[in-house]
């Protein structure tokens, strides 16, 4: 592996090109341009804001997933958390005209509570995240099923529909404001608060973090709660955007896989310690644009999951840091022992 130290001559342009968010932006623009040439109605302003709005659910839930993956964990229960949040406010909204602000508070509380469940299993019981959240995936999914008792939310009060479909000011949909708000707050949180910084420290080297005085278990706990809350908020966004919810909400759109995909495509390291909300957001936009492109190009939608899989592979293998690390880790374990 060539070392990149001290090569100051490298042009700034190349440096920027090496950044995952820049690569993604270029990929998004390139893909849009190509599709637009083939189907000229693709890049109309209404379609652009449609695609951006369509990425917001993924953006919000992916931001939480990203934080968990940064700590070397994973949350497989975001899909039922999203679903439970959506139906828990969907039915009161449909039947009793639940106030929309109360609904927002409610989804946050639900996400918080379900996130606590994951956090307890991972930090107090010490169960590996993949197993703990696989268990809660089942439990929460079952609860979602019980709560709906087979019913579907189909009609929503006007203010919910407005949040889902209308602009706050002409040209800027409500949803994009929500998505941007979540991403900016997450960026600030991760970069400029001690807790956010601790998340990266734990993901990089939990042992060293603990010895440095960082309360590792508390930080992990917090991360699962944040992920739960964001999944809950994503449930609200979903309900407003789609306009309906039922017992399969969340799992029907494959929220688990897609949130992980957006995160990895957005440059988060599978090995932990590295990742940004902005990258995840761009990953979500990328997936949304690709999704629309599939429709517009009249490619059979059954190809979509395979396409997502290929994108994940590409994202991990082309990653400058985790790519080689993953390959090394897969190859052999002997090399771990280098220093006498």
């Amino acid at each position: 592996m060539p070392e990149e130290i001290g090569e100051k001559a490298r042009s700034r342009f190349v440096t920027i090109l090496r950044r995952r968010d820049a690569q993604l932006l270029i990929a998004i623009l390139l893909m849009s341009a190509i599709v637009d040439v083939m189907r000229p109605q693709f890049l109309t302003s209404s379609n652009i804001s449609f695609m951006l709005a369509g990425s917001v659910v993924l953006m919000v839930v992916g931001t939480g997933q990203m934080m968990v993956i940064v700590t070397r964990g994973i949350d497989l229960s975001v899909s039922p958390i999203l679903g439970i949040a959506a139906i828990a406010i969907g039915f009161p909204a449909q039947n009793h005209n639940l106030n929309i602000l109360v609904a927002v508070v409610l989804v946050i509380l639900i996400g918080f509570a379900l996130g606590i469940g994951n956090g307890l299993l991972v930090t107090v019981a010490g169960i590996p995240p993949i197993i703990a959240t696989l268990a809660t995936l089942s439990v929460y999914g079952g609860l979602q099923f019980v709560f709906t008792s087979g019913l579907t939310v189909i009609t929503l009060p006007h203010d919910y529909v407005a949040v889902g479909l209308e602009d706050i000011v002409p040209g800027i949909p409500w949803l994009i404001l929500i998505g941007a708000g979540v991403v900016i707050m997450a960026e600030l949180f991760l970069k400029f608060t001690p807790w956010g910084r601790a998340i990266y420290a734990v993901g990089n080297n939990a042992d060293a973090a603990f010895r440095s005085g960082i309360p590792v278990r508390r930080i992990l706990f917090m991360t699962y709660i944040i992920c739960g809350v964001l999944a809950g908020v994503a449930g609200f966004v979903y309900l407003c955007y789609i306009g309906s919810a039922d017992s399969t909400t969340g799992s029907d759109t494959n929220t688990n896989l897609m949130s992980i995909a957006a995160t990895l495509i957005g440059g988060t390291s599978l090995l932990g310690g590295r990742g940004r909300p902005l990258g995840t957001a761009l990953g979500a936009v990328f997936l949304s644009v690709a999704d629309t492109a599939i429709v517009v190009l009249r490619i059979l939608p059954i190809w979509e999951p395979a396409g997502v899989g290929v994108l994940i592979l590409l994202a991990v293998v082309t990653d400058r840091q985790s790519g080689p690390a993953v390959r090394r880790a897969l190859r052999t374990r002997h090399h771990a022992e280098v220093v006498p």
Partner: protein
Amino acid sequence: MSATVTEGVISPPKLQGLRYEGTSLRKSFDGAVVLDDATITFEPGEIHAIVGENGAGKSTLVKILSGIYQPDSGTLVLGGERLIGLHPHTAQQRGIYLVPQEPSLMASLSVTENLFVGILRRKRVSFVVDWRPMRREASGYLERVGLDIDPEMRADDLSVAQQQLVECARALVHRCQVLFFDEPTSPLTEHEADTLFDVMRSLRDSGFTLGFISHRLDEVLAISDRLTVLRDGKIVMRGTRDQLTRPAVVSAMVGREIVTRVRERGKRDFTTSKGMLAVSNLTLEPYFRDISFVLREGEILGLGGLVGSGRTEIAETIYGLRSAERGSVEVEGVTLAHRTPRACVDAGLIYLPEDRGRHGIFAEVEVTRNVTAGVIHRLPRRGPLLRPAAERRMAEEATKTTAVRMPTIDALMKTLSGGNQQRSMLARWLLAGPKVAIFDEPTRGVDVGAKDDIWTLVDKLAHDGLACLLISSELTELTVICDRVLAIYEGSVVGELSGDDITDARLGAMVVGSVAQ
């Protein structure tokens, strides 16, 4: 050569023996020479002990001989045949087997399967494993190494000592005639060690070639036929057991060179200084027991001892990484009852870990954040948000104090050399404003220049009032900068030296368990 092993019947094979020679072996890691021009010969029918302090190069030498490391230069000749590009696998095929320090059996597999892994016997249909003859053979091999166990037991149901013997049996199964043991006795009790020695003697008497690393002088002198002493990567003494005396070996191990710096601190009297860290009756079996001492303001107290003597466990227990069975820790007169790293840091007690890579650095992160990691919760803020510019200035100042050399402070930690990583770790802990510092092997894996700098820095910090507990397996380090040294042997304090009484020779005798005259 033919160590004929017929199925089921194991008679001690008559070996014609393999002579194994390493000539002018050299090895360096990242520019630091750890083995320099080592020439050594292992004769069949002999137990050859390699002794030396920690870091002297013993393990490196044996790892080269067993194919784990490739030497930078030098030759290996086994039974008259030159070995080129030796790897662990080819070494085993050639008949060289390394019994590792910690047995590395496959925990959930049976003893039989562990013994025969890689050479499972097949039935006539070649993909069907033929277990019956293997079980029969296994019992024979186990008997040969003095093990009376059911070959169908799972490996992790065995004690460490039994697992080690299974490793020996595995070497026999694979028809290895050259066996190396890397500190085999450190996880064993005395009685278990005796059993192992009996097996080693019996192997020797049947013509095997045995190499053996240890830092326990008593057992070395008891069992070996020949000794080679390593110090700082060089062979400083060799001879048969009869030619060498105990004091000669001790002084060869610890060296008598004049140290680079003169101890200026000399006989400063600390008895009237303020007690900063008081440890009493701290016990955590089986690692250490009844450790008591008072560390005073501005004092450098050394904890001398070999790897495995319990030094690091003592430090980790003080810092709250392990829970003590009993005993107490006071910082500045205040008892720290429920110790966690955070509580200790807040009380002014910091711990620079021995294993920098695993427990210290964040390799993929910039130096800045590495340095401020110990004080994340105390960083300058505006409202709820941190101020990166102010944080950067803090980090810059701290790295300047500890003289970290780096391209920029935004360089990733992994791009720095070992010495500079260690300086960054010191910078991290200086930012925490410590009153008491535990430095665990502060100069491990750093080059000579950096070593001297770190010593100077620790010395200066102590002058400014920092109470330092310095753990080292390098005697020179302790004699150069400590005001007082406690010698730890097998988890107990066996002696205390202070001022000019701290000499390599006295300390060396104490840490290998023979009390000074």
